[in-house]
């Protein structure tokens, strides 16, 4: 371990060398908190090379590109469905994109138990199941065929990779409902008159809250994605650095995000699951983990944040406006306790992010690093530190 005048404790090269030689010390974000509490920050920084983070929850801006190969005679697909869920075909002849929130057409009414969409198709593919395909295209001289009907599975396709334009939100809102009726939202079921409050990040396990300025996370960073190895490919949509911070310097509203990709064929249905939010729509629950190298004491200070240090704003989802009024600020420690106080009333809380599955993500990533299967990659390009999330500019 080096400890030069700049305060650097170790480099990526040194860490990767230790991974190759089996000497790396890697722990999960939760284990690191225990080590810091027991041994103090200096000893912890000297002892630990890498801290693994993890999150598992619905991430709507997700989907997968597929290339299903050419039929004989070939077809230029212009419209297609997978398990009757429409896919985007405005690409080359047999390339398509299935979006996580695309719903199977048909009246749902009150029968939300029948809701099925892109997230469920992606889960079916990763499970190795047969998926019904229906494709159509106008015949051309080079693509004479007009229709394909049949079944396809992940093993049959040429390329299948997850491409998620926005994952791993750095913090999120706490949602509640002041109205007199139950609301069904993307933040779950919200009971009337502040009957409950839902929140949606993994708190002290959450990747972007453990490196809030993204010093170690940028384009080219290797990550855990859906049970396989993925990569950060850029700032996620709605990336925002101009948000308010709490006294610990952590954002208290939705801030930075990641665009990520990875090979679907190496992923697992345990960490990619179709989900339904009744009355709202369908989505894909994604497991995502990022390794944080302890390069210096500043990074150590970032990974030392606990649920008591991270806070989020409570918003009234009963207000149907872009800027909802804030009803206060609470810490993740309070949210995890099972209840918070809003206007003097005790309100029960529910997470929408599975902390148990987030822990599994961090644990799996730790095992990969400890056994030399996963090397760390420094960002090839840093993500912006001056980006504002603008409202809709349609005139």
């Amino acid at each position, binding site marked *: 371990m080096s400890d030069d005048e700049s305060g650097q404790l170790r480099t990526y090269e040194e860490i990767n060398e230790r991974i190759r030689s089996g000497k790396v010390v890697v722990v999960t974000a939760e284990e690191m908190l225990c080590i810091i509490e027991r041994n103090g920050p200096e000893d912890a920084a000297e002892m630990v090379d890498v801290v693994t983070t993890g999150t598992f929850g619905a991430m709507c801006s997700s989907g997968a590109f597929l290339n299903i190969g050419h039929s004989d005679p070939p077809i230029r697909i212009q419209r297609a469905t997978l398990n009757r869920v429409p896919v985007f075909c405005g690409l080359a002849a047999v390339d398509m994109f299935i979006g996580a929130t695309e719903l199977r057409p048909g009246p749902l009414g009150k029968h939300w138990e029948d809701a099925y969409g892109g997230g469920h198709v992606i889960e079916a593919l990763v499970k190795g199941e047969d998926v019904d395909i229906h494709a159509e295209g106008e015949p051309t001289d080079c693509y004479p065929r007009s229709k394909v009907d049949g079944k396809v599975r992940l093993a049959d396709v040429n390329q299948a990779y997850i491409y998620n334009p926005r994952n791993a939100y750095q913090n999120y809102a706490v949602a509640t409902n002041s109205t007199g009726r139950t609301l069904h939202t993307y933040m779950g079921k919200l009971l009337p008159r502040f009957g409950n409050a839902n929140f949606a990040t993994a708190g002290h396990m959450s990747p972007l809250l453990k490196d809030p300025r993204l010093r170690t996370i940028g384009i080219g960073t290797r990550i855990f994605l859906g049970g396989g190895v993925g990569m950060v490919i850029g700032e996620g949509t709605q990336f925002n650095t101009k948000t308010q911070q709490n006294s610990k310097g952590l954002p208290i509203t939705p801030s930075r995000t990641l665009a990520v990709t990875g090979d679907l064929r190496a992923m697992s249905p345990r960490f990619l699951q179709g989900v339904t939010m009744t009355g709202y729509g369908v989505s894909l629950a994604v497991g995502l983990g990022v390794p944080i190298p302890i390069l210096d004491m500043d990074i150590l200070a970032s990974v030392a944040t606990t649920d008591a240090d991270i806070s989020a704003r409570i918003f009234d989802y009963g207000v149907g406006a872009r800027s909802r009024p804030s009803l206060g600020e609470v810490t993740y420690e309070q949210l995890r306790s099972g209840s918070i106080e809003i206007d003097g009333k005790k309100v029960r809380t529910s*997470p929408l992010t599975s902390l148990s599955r987030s822990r599994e993500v961090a644990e799996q990533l730790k095992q990969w690093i400890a056994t030399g299967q996963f090397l760390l990659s420094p960002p090839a390009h840093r993500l912006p530190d001056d980006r504002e999330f603008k409202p809709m500019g349609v005139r």
Partner: protein
Amino acid sequence: MPGKGRSLKKDLKKMLKGKAIKKGRKAGAVKPARKVIDHDRELCNDCGACVSLCPATVMWLDKRSNLVVEKQKCIGCGNCVDACPRRALSLD
């Protein structure tokens, strides 16, 4: 007539509390109509979205954040069923 309606209601209550019904319940011939929650562990991913919705506190997250469902305490309201993103909860 309102008077007659009230008396019919009383009669019906009396009948439902009657010995015949009690005997039938004891013998297993008359079963309570109430359904209770069924939790599919395979489908559940322990997110906890159901926890704050249960008026009987039938479900909670344990120390490892795994969902625990105490079926015996369920009052069958069904509040949690449509809130489960994985459709792991049903009334059975």
